[in-house]
């Protein structure tokens, strides 16, 4: 099987082709959590074409991903399906935030290629021509200002930035 790798950087490509004849894709992520937040599965097909909520759930069960950030041991990352008014959404987490880069290794559980796994979904009519990829969702805010802080559980709103109130003088 062919080897596939991508590098996500500032101003780099935001759409990664998933219709590949490989069962492993290495994605090097620059500053996960700071530049890039997560990956979202996107396709040109809708629910009436077969890409309904069941398709997303089935696809997520066929995928496995690990993040290698270098700072800690390799860790599995979440591949989740959320439902929205717009429809279902499959997201792949990028692991721990990192200043530099991490490696996200995405695999099919069966060893079949991503193209086969996607096209052979029970939800899709056979021989369906389609486009499928991963969209790079940008990170919001400026995560670095959490980065060198002690890891403490925040109370209340996760988005609050209480340490902005620290005294000046650095």
């Amino acid at each position, binding site marked *: 099987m062919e080897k596939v790798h991508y590098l996500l950087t500032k101003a780099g490509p935001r759409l990664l082709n998933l219709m590949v004849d490989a069962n492993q894709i290495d994605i090097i992520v620059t500053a996960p959590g700071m530049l890039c937040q997560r990956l979202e599965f996107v396709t040109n097909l809708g629910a009436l074409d077969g890409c309904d909520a069941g398709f997303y759930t089935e696809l997520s069960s066929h995928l496995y991903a690990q993040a290698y950030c270098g*700072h800690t041991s390799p860790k599995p990352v979440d591949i989740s399906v959320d439902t929205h008014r717009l429809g279902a959404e499959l997201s792949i987490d990028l692991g721990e935030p990192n200043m530099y880069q991490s490696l996200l290794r995405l695999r099919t559980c069966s060893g079949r290629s991503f193209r086969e796994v996607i096209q052979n979904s029970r939800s899709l009519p056979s021989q369906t021509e389609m486009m499928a990829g991963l969209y790079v969702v940008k990170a919001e805010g400026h995560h670095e200002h959490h*980065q060198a802080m002690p890891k403490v559980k925040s109370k209340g709103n996760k988005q609050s930035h209480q340490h902005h109130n*620290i005294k000046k003088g650095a």
Partner: protein
Amino acid sequence: MDIRKSAAQLNDNEIDAFLEAIIKLKARKASDANISVYDQFVALHGAVMAVTRNNADPVNFAHNNIGFLAWHRQYLRLFELALQKEVAGVSLPYWDWSDDIGASNRLFTDDFLSSTTRGRPESISNGLLRRRVPNNRKPDWWPSSLRGFSVNRHLEEGSGRNLKRGSTENNWPPSIAQMQQLSELNISIRGSNPLWAFWLVLEQGYDGFIMRTHNAGHRFIGGHMAGSFSPNDPIFWMHHANVDRIWAHWQEFQLRINADSNPKDFWPHPDEFSPFEGRVAPLGHKLNDDLWPWVGSDSNQYQSVSAAQTILKRLHDYSNMKKVKVVDVLDFEAMGFKYE
């Protein structure tokens, strides 16, 4: 003029002098805080990740934009001068990424900066960077106050106080040809200053072009080198000396191919929009911006919000030092060093 040489080409005496300076700086207590001078430098690298001026949105003064080059040049030079206070005549060696055989045989050895490891981060178990160095392995110059090279407890980022490494980069090293290509990169996106593209490839790499550059190097070492306090690992200084060397070569290349030019021509005009963001560079990254924390008497306008108070209160106070702007670090020979 200090001459920075390839770490793999240093002779035994030069290696010993460099290690002596590093270890002594690690033992040297700072005059203005309860921390070693070495660790003050480490703390600064974490603090610079998010800095606000007059409570505006925080900016990373040292990464993810063109100021990456300028900030680290100034940072390294101050560190080099601090080393020279410990051992006169020492200069920062650079880790030539493309000389992998030299690095394996000379740099990543028990006698120099200890070996690299693959996979899960593990404590360094040989050489002088261990947390506890056996007495019979300590050189004559070893400071009596130091048991080994332990990571400061405020700066260990959950990785522990033993210096750790663990590589997850399978595609290292870059080739000599790629490094040459990078030093002569001359891409001007829609007429923009060529520094934009050069910086992006040098700091982050670029798919389909050269991926194995600064960020990949941090991941190639891994462990503490993969965190905000990456200078905990002394390889950081050699890694960034190589980044700076490539920038220096690029500057020389641009001066060579552009008659009657000067170094300022190869930094975007302050009003030039980034071709990546469609706006001017952020604070600290433009030609005439001050480089925090070297902002002189304006220091009370700035505040780091990336580090805890326990760290911020240990930073060196640079308020009595002359301001340093981006434009001040473009001429590296004027700063007192060059590369062999």
